[in-house]
């Protein structure tokens, strides 16, 4: 009997050891995605705008949190951060950018050359917003867009600001520039293809160009103002979706609805009123690198952000309800509209350059894009915290500096946009930072675990002091053994284990904790893991 027990105990120990994967691998934490596999086989694909609306509104796409529990973001390293790579790059929050870098955004060094004419090489008159493609004297191709007649500077200004902010927030975005020109700067190229209002493609004439320019507002000095973007690096292969993975991309192994940077994009989109944050405004490109190609994922087309709906000012319901908001409809029908939604009380300045943008009725958690987005809907408090801490990292002065890139002719418009972004930023901080224990940027200094308490840094209410409980940590079994002698943030020195865990909470609230994992290598501790509960 005793022999049998001994055998089974031995088996249990060895089997558990075998079956349990280490929590931390020796190369954790990864700061960058591993070198991608060659994805040269990826084929271009299109996405139908209406299908995307229907699919996301009615087909409940993507894997959702279920009865079995929530699904945390899955594209993270052990520090609870996405890795630098095809989707995302750590920028301003981690490595504060200078004012100049913030204003410059993703490029800033390649505006259209002022030397010589700009050759129009293709154009369209479809849609309400005119636009064309031009080539400057250096041979660079630029996509050109304009403001609606009724709202000079609105769409182009919004696009410039949001491009800079999303770049600083870590996304891959195009390189945009504002241009001002007179009609004689443009030269119609030979055999330029043109798609007319009926969708027919034909050769473009000077008259077509004149008609197109007739739909663009002029500045008081008689010039046209437009926004140009360079083609993003790589070969376009179509947009990405906010759920599932791209079937022909071997590197795309995490479902998009579980990607932290796409879940967190909800917070950024709400801040910037980017209701148009949908697949159609994304672009994957096949980028060469190290002898192979990989797919890089971009956000683009920010003309419908802040107070701009591209061709007109935003109305109050934009950013507040889905196109097909079937949840709120019954209440509106039953109450004959007497139940006035909070967003209907919004007040906007009568400034054409601003459009429909304000902060008073902004509720960060209630904000909505044009239609449901699986990644946005899957967001969890840790995703929101990840985004909110980045939003809060922009100082008032930095926001005001970035808004200047819009080159508003009216200083009041510039001031209003900046003030509104600041006010919305603060609401985001208040909403999300306290959903979790907002400690971040952990480091070791002088034998102590140090960190930033974002609640205190941003003036949010805190309840009680921070507490810490140290444990030695079995990396294979995932078990903690408390070290009772350690009571403060000084790292215990006499641990028998190569891993330590520090559980931190505030006051009596043990529901919101942060656990920081340390690994001792050659006598030196390093932080290898961060986990949050809420």
């Amino acid at each position: 009997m005793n022999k049998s027990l001994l055998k089974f105990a031995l088996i249990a120990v060895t089997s558990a050891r075998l079956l349990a994967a280490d929590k931390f691998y020796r190369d954790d934490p990864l700061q960058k995605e591993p070198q991608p596999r060659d994805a040269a086989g990826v084929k271009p694909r299109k996405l139908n705008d209406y299908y995307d609306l229907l699919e996301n509104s009615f087909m409940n796409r993507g894997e959702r949190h279920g009865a079995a529990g929530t699904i945390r973001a899955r594209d993270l390293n052990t520090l609870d951060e996405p890795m630098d790579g095809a989707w995302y790059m750590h920028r301003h929050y981690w490595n504060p950018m200078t004012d100049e870098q913030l204003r410059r955004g993703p490029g800033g060094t390649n505006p259209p050359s002022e030397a010589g004419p700009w050759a129009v090489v293709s154009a369209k008159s479809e849609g309400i917003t005119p636009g064309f493609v031009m080539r400057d004297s250096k041979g660079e191709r630029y996509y050109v867009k304009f403001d609606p007649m009724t709202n000079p500077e609105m769409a182009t200004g919004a696009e410039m600001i949001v491009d800079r902010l999303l770049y600083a927030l870590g996304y891959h975005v195009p390189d945009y520039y504002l241009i001002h020109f007179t009609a004689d700067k443009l030269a119609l190229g030979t055999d330029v293809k043109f798609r007319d209002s009926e969708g027919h493609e034909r050769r473009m004439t000077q008259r077509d160009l004149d008609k197109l320019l007739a739909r663009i507002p002029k500045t008081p000095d008689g010039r046209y103002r437009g926004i140009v973007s360079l083609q993003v690096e790589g070969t376009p292969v179509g947009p990405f979706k906010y759920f599932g993975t791209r079937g022909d991309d071997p590197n795309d192994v995490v479902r998009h609805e579980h990607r932290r940077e796409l879940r967190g994009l909800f917070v950024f989109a709400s801040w910037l009123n980017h209701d148009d944050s949908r697949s159609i405004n994304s672009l994957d490109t096949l980028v060469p690198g190290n002898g192979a190609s990989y797919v890089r994922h971009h956000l683009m087309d920010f003309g419908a952000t802040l107070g701009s709906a591209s061709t007109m000012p935003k109305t109050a319901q934009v950013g507040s309800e889905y196109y097909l908001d079937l949840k709120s409809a019954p209440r509106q029908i039953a109450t004959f509209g007497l139940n006035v939604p909070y967003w209907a009380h919004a007040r906007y300045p009568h400034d054409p350059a601003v459009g429909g943008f304000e902060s008073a009725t902004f509720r960060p958690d209630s904000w909505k894009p044009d239609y449901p987005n699986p990644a946005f809907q899957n967001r969890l408090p840790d995703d929101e915290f990840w985004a909110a801490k980045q939003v809060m990292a922009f100082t008032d002065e930095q926001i005001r500096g970035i808004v200047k890139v819009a080159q508003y002719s009216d200083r009041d418009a510039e001031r209003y946009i900046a003030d509104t972004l600041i006010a919305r930023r603060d609401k985001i901080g208040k909403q999300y930072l306290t959903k979790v224990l907002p400690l971040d940027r952990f480091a070791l200094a002088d034998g102590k675990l140090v960190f930033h308490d974002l609640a205190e840094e941003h003036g949010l209410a805190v309840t009680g002091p921070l507490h810490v409980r140290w444990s030695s940590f079995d990396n294979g079994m995932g078990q903690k053994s408390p070290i009772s002698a350690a009571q403060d943030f000084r790292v215990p020195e006499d641990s028998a284990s190569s891993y330590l865990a520090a559980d931190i909470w505030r006051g009596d609230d043990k529901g919101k904790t942060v656990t920081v994992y340390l690994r001792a290598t050659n006598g030196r501790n390093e932080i290898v893991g961060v986990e949050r509960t809420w």
Partner: protein
Amino acid sequence: MNEPMKVQGRSSWTREFTLRLLLPISLACSLLTPFLCRAQDTRTGEIEQQRDEKAAHVQYDAPKKLEKDLFFIEDNKILERVTAGYHGWNLQFGGLVQGSGFALGPEYHLHTESPGSELRVGAQLSTKLYQKYYVGWTLPKLAHDHLSVDFNAVHRNYSQIDYFGPGPRSLKSDRTDYRLEDTAVDLALGAKPVRHLELGGSAGFLAVNVGPGQSDEFPSSEQVFPPTITPGIDKQTNFLRVGPYAQVDYLDNPQGPASGGLYTFEYTWYRDQKLNLHDFQRMDAEIQQYFGFFNKTRVLALRAKTTLTDADTGQTVPFYMQPMIGGSEDLRGFLPFRFYDNNSLVLNAEYRWHVVSILNMALFADGGKVFSRRGQLNFSHLQGDGGIGFRFNVQGRPFLRVDIAGSHEGFQVWLKFNDIFVRHPVGSASAQPIS
């Protein structure tokens, strides 16, 4: 007897499995870990393994059938061709008089930028065989948007327009119908001296013919109503018409106004060119006012309009030129063209509210009357109705209107592709009862 044997057998098999297989493997793995038994021991390796597995099964994300269908519509420019047309040609849906049934027809549209002219030539046929043929040429923005010219020629053949007899006391049970066939040619000149104001005048020719109605359900009008009660039912005439107009327009959005106002005044002289029986004047006045609140998600829309006619001494206004009310555009709880007389007054009030982006709803009340003498222009003896409406929008513009209205004469359900307060072009062409 069998139970112990079964237990014994299982125990024996378990022991053998444990000793001979599981224990050695477990011990070996434990010793060799992490070199042999774990698939990966680095995060990089783990991710690369996931990529390897994906690479072994890559597949192109083919669009689903619905998406393919939508691509077909997009690639073949079907929507553009339906809405903008094909080489100028497009299909025109609806737009005929109420009660005509579903109407459809081709239209040729030529737009030129300079001087900004619009030419429209078209024909329409409805399910009740109503016909309309028209040519319209407009120069709306001459002299830097200060002058406009509008030419219209139309021939209509409506086979069964309802008629219930003259006056406010006509009976629903007296329903009859007649054929209205007319041809009109009109030219209007407008000037916009200041923003929001347009002044102008128009002149035109109108030839009218009335015939037996084609309904199988109701008698033809001339069988029930003699010329002494219904002037003009026996003989019709041609008119020259001329008159001035004025319009103030400060609506925020002509396609779906939520604030502002539209005030229209027209005065038209009709001169009988054939019978010398029907010389008269007609005055049309209409006020539309919109009050939007809560960011225009709620709108109070009000309209008052009156048409007054005045026949010269010894002359009459023929019944087919009398003001008429009832139906989808004014008194929605009543049948189309329910009331005819020399004068009319219509009052409408709507409270509209936003439900979702594609749907607005409305509670409405209509009041109106016809009357024989202009002195009866007051708010007494109004016919009333009320109801609820559903307004479907596409890209912020009203697309489909479903109004359900009730009155003492019953319920009516209207399905229309226009706004309730239809914005008619000004000028003599619009100063016509059935437009």
